[in-house]
């Protein structure tokens, strides 16, 4: 059957803390060996393809825990096929699909449909998240057991945030019953009100209504208490404030099953980027202060923050080319996720190993996936990266059907050269054309 050897790459595997030049061998879609040192002249027993990856980093494929598409319902924004092409180009070999579609993914049959549809059209692994509440309405819980059987990897209400503490308690308890992770985006709807950006001097000067940090920390405090009460595998989808990171660190001392993520936007950008009322910077959670951004970086360094995700949210120009307060939230990010994260490595803020861990090992552990590591027997989902490759993110270059990138025009260093899913190459920079 098919054999593959990647030789002379700098192999970085956070799960085993491996960081050395070596050879990775693959057979029938699974990793069969990982050895340090230069390749032997004939290293693939019985032949097979050999790839010389000198000068490149070989890492596990990225696992993006927060991706929205428009399929089903808004295919003009994004399909599973277009999102997976974007993912492959960005080095993302698996992504968790948020249930905010039309219809909402709150039924086993719809999970089944997505899995079949992804098999037929997508080149990377698509992992459906099922809704916590029916119709994302925050009123009744969905059929967790049946959804799990159908193949949902976790429960999440996507962009929505459940306001009822009682419903959350029930959801957490019932999810614990099925040993399923619950991923929750924490927003206090009342405190958010008409707010459209981080509350502070900058919003006041722009005449935009602010969203206070407390719109995140108050529901987060409630979630953490309920998570400790119920023992659920709780993942705060995305935190954005310094205080939230402190709260997560505090709760961690009391319970093991607590984790959290941060959007690449909140790591790479801050509220000042909203300056010209550019709606591609209108996000939820909003871009916060520079102090908050620094706290997110520190949280990753300290291990308080587990996961970096793209929060890939395709929106068409109809809802984005609007006055700031009236535009939809969200930005695409699959194709810029790694390069934007590498900014923090190039700037000396974070180690490469730390960034990759938050993009591979930790999401896999939280979701209970066999991927996200370069272990023998694991799926051969991996990427080859040129860490210093200079490029400019541009509208024309995106594979996503939507163009609402918060990194549009940004100069970036680091690009995926090749992406492999189950040992099969799904993206090749040289074939696709560089730039």
């Amino acid at each position, binding site marked *: 059957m098919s054999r593959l050897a990647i030789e002379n790459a700098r192999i970085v595997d956070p799960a085993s803390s491996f960081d050395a030049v070596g050879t990775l061998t693959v057979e029938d879609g699974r990793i069969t060996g990982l050895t340090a040192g230069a390749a032997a002249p004939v290293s693939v027993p019985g032949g097979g393809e050999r790839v010389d990856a000198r000068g490149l980093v070989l890492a596990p494929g990225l696992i993006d825990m927060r991706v929205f598409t428009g399929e089903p319902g808004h295919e003009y924004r994004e399909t599973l096929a277009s999102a997976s092409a974007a993912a492959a180009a960005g080095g993302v070999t698996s992504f968790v699909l948020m249930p905010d579609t039309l219809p909402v993914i709150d039924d086993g049959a719809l999970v089944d449909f997505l899995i079949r549809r992804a098999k037929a059209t997508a080149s990377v692994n698509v992992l459906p998240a099922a809704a916590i509440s029916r119709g994302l309405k925050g009123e009744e819980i969905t059929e967790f057991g049946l959804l799990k059987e159908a193949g949902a990897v976790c429960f999440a209400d996507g962009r929505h945030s459940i306001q009822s503490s009682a419903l959350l308690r029930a959801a957490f308890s019932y999810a614990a019953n099925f040993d399923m992770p619950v991923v929750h985006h924490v927003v206090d709807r009342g405190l958010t009100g008409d707010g459209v950006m981080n*509350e*502070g*001097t*900058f*919003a*006041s*000067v*722009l*005449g*935009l*209504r*602010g969203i206070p940090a407390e719109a995140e920390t108050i529901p987060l405090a409630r979630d953490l208490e309920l998570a400790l009460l119920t023992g659920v595998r709780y993942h705060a989808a995305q935190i954005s404030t310094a205080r939230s990171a402190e709260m997560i660190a505090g709760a961690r001392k009391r319970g093991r099953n607590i984790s959290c993520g941060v959007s690449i936007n909140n790591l790479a950008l801050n509220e000042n980027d909203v300056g*010209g*009322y550019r709606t591609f910077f209108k996000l939820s959670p909003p871009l916060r202060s520079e102090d908050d951004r620094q706290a997110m970086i520190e949280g990753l360094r300290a291990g308080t923050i587990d996961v970096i995700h793209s929060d890939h949210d395709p929106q068409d120009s*109809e*809802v984005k*080319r*609007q*006055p*700031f*307060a*009236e*535009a939809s939230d969200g930005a695409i990010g699959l194709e810029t996720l790694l390069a934007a994260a590498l900014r923090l490595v190039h700037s000396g803020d974070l180690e490469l190993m730390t960034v990759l861990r938050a993009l591979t090992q930790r999401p896999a552990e939280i979701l209970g996936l066999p991927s996200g590591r370069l272990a023998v027997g694991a799926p051969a989902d991996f990427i080859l990266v040129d860490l210093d490759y200079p490029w400019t993110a541009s509208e024309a270059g995106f594979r996503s059907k939507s163009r609402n990138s918060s990194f549009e025009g940004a100069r970036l260093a680091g690009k995926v050269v090749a992406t492999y899913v189950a040992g099969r190459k799904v993206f090749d920079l040289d074939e696709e054309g560089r730039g």
Partner: protein
Amino acid sequence: MTAPSPTHAEPGTSLPGNFPRFSQKHLLGIADLTPFEILELLDRAEAMIPISRQERKSLPTLAGKTQINLFFEPSTRTQGSFEIAGKRLGAQVMNTSVKTSSVSKGETLIDTAATLNAMRPDVIVVRHSAAGAVQLLSRKVGCSVINAGDGAHEHPTQALLDALTIRRHKGRLNGLTVAICGDIANSRVARSNLLLLGALQIRTRVVAPKTLLPRGIESMASEVFTDMREGLRGADVVMMLRLQHERASGKMIPSVREYFRFYGLDAEKLSFAKPDAIVMHPGPMNRGVEIDPAIADGSRSVITDQVEMGVAVRMAVLDALLADRNEPTR
């Protein structure tokens, strides 16, 4: 009025006084203006005042030009003021009021901008309920754009007309203390005034209950007060803001009567300001909510002067943005 009275101007085609070419294409906000440009616009407006006071109210520097007033929010005062200003300068003025549904506001904005732009106007005067909307529109059209109010962001001609009114009544701007009172959080008038007065290094105070003060206001005003008497103490100018009481009542303030009791301008509170302090209001007023009718219509009120200065300021802005560029000889 203590302002110098320019000699009676004959109807003609050039503005009295010698003004340099104005370098800006749009007037989107006070934030974009230098102190020099602010003072220059005030001087230009000063020179426009006699035009409106003479019998033949015409200075056709904009003859042959097209001005579109595009109002996404209803406004009698500002729209009328811009219309009269344009007409007195000889421009063809078209008024468009766009009824907006909450669903399709933005679509209407960009689409309308493209449609109107194709008719080749020389200037579009825009009011919109969303902050930044006028800036967005200015990027979609080829002509000059004047901000007639965008959300809680800016209302530059209001700040200019307020400054002109103050200067004419006080004979100066330097050394004055201006207290701006009321719903600061939601007021574009407050923001533009704070920017203008701040640029000219004039002492500003804001006075409001904490619920109506935006975060970071300390960096926008010289002093912040929550007690109105303290805030008015020794002020030369008391600028009242309209309270959107239908929206604020029960949420930001408990009731209108409580608001009036603590933050409404009456004779007793006004007695803390300087004896010759003037009272201003951008209109439309809520008598009995933020201001006692006796004060609004009393001898210290300069509210109707503000309306007159509004026309002069808008003539000056239109003339500065449009007339200069085709009349390099001025």
